[in-house]
């Protein structure tokens, strides 16, 4: 099997703080790869480097054979992404969010319209095609983001905590859909999650990262065997300890307030 993602000694420093400390791993083409770790471990930072959003401080990386530092656009055409934080435009409709994405990725109009309808049906949002995203629930937004990430036929899809805050039904639905994509279209899946059952069920290969360092890799079964535990959750706790990590907080609420102040009734 060939590797579609190759990462070697990848490092990211924010000032003097080293968020990712020389990680190395590979993801097989057509594989399902779970990147697990407590809050602040460096998962999102690693994904941002793979997806050209952040410049690595050191190390080498290849995505679909291209280097994100020198071949950013080739890399960008290779993947779709669902970010950890929402990234839809709330003031546009579901269709417009997808349409804008299609235009940005140069999908020709006919293909675009057809594919948008297919994808909306797939994530069961066809009847909300022309509703504003601001009126969507968290689960609907997530599904729309997944549809958007798939619109340009990527070879890899990155899912950064895609099921955060979703109810079990939606989570279940989402994963069976992702597995189907992987099986039928051969799309490589790279995801993070805090739900260990999900990772155990879906992932073919797992890497556990903590404090910016990869501390274990293997299949779910291998990690359980290695730690002598009976569930991935316990394997994870055995590997990363039980100390609670703080999630860095954003200034979202302040921002909302300020925007309302300066722009009248906008949400």
């Amino acid at each position, binding site marked *: 099997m060939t590797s579609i993602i190759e990462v070697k000694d990848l490092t990211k420093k924010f000032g003097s703080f080293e968020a990712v400390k020389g990680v190395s791993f590979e993801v097989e083409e057509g594989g399902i790869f779970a990147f697990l770790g407590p809050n602040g471990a460096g998962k999102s930072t690693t994904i941002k480097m793979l997806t050209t959003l952040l410049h690595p401080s050191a190390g080498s990386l290849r995505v679909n054979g291209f280097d994100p530092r020198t071949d950013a656009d080739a890399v960008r055409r290779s993947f779709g992404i669902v*970010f950890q934080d929402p990234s*839809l*435009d709330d003031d546009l409709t579901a269709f417009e969010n997808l349409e*804008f*994405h299609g*235009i940005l990725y140069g999908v020709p109009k006919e293909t675009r319209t057809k594919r948008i309808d297919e994808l909306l049906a797939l994530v069961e949002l066809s009847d909300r095609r022309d509703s504003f995203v601001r009126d969507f629930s968290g689960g609907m937004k997530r599904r729309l983001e997944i549809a*958007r990430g798939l619109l340009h036929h990527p070879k890899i899809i990155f899912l950064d905590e895609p099921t955060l805050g979703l109810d079990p039904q939606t989570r279940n639905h989402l994963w069976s859909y992702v597995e189907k994509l992987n099986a039928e279209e051969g799309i490589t899946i790279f995801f993070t999650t805090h739900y260990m059952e999900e990772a155990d069920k879906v992932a073919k290969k797992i890497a556990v990262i903590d404090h910016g360092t990869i501390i274990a890799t293997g299949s779910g079964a291998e990690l359980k065997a290695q730690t002598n535990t009976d569930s991935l959750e316990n394997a994870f706790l055995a590997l990363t300890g039980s100390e609670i990590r703080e999630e860095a907080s954003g200034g979202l609420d302040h921002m909302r307030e300020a925007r309302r102040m300066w*722009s009248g*009734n906008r949400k």
Partner: protein
Amino acid sequence: MGGIYVMWKREVLRFLRSPSRIAGSLGQPLLFLVALGYGLGPVFRAAGQGNYLDFLAPGIIGMAIIFTSIFNGMQIIWDRQFGFLKETMVAPVSRLAIMFGRTLGGATVAAAQGALVLIMAVLIGFRPVSWAGIAPALVVMLLVALLFSAVGITVASKLRDMQGFHLIMNLLVMPLFFLSGALFPLSSAPQALLLIARFDPLSYGVDALRYFLTGSAAFGLGLDLLILCAVSAFFLWLGALFFSQIEV
């Protein structure tokens, strides 16, 4: 091309879809036109300066444009916080195209706001010297809007949060407006004030608007256009540079 179009269209759609926002941002210019235009009119006339509403209208159009375009440019801060910026940053489109599309969209919207203020001014008694001056005045509005949208994007590319935004609104936009000669004639202003106004690009925008709408300009149309074009080009370049350096 697709990138420029999409970013432009997004700005225009947002504008068209929020009638209350349009109405809201016309309130302030209307207040200035009525309170100052009518209130100071007699004093202005007594001082032998002519009709104050006629003098004031181009200045208030400039005000609407600078506020709207800088505000639109600063949308980047919200797009960064609310995540949409990331969606554009991972797209296989040059950052230059994204930045340029945003600037054009913001400028289109701000110029439209300026045109609405012009209509409003006419409704309350402003009379342009000639109707033929309207078309070139609209072009000037677009140019001024382009300039300050680029300024907004340049500044916003370096800011991360709302504190910075308030700071810019109060420390940059307010002085730019009040010191531009939008409210008072530069020809009779004290030397020091005139000197400051000469470093304020909005002065030249308002001056060019006065040239087409009232028939008189303090600096002259040639200098106005030269400065507006040069400063726009500079901020488009600087904004593109800063925007390309954003890490999300």
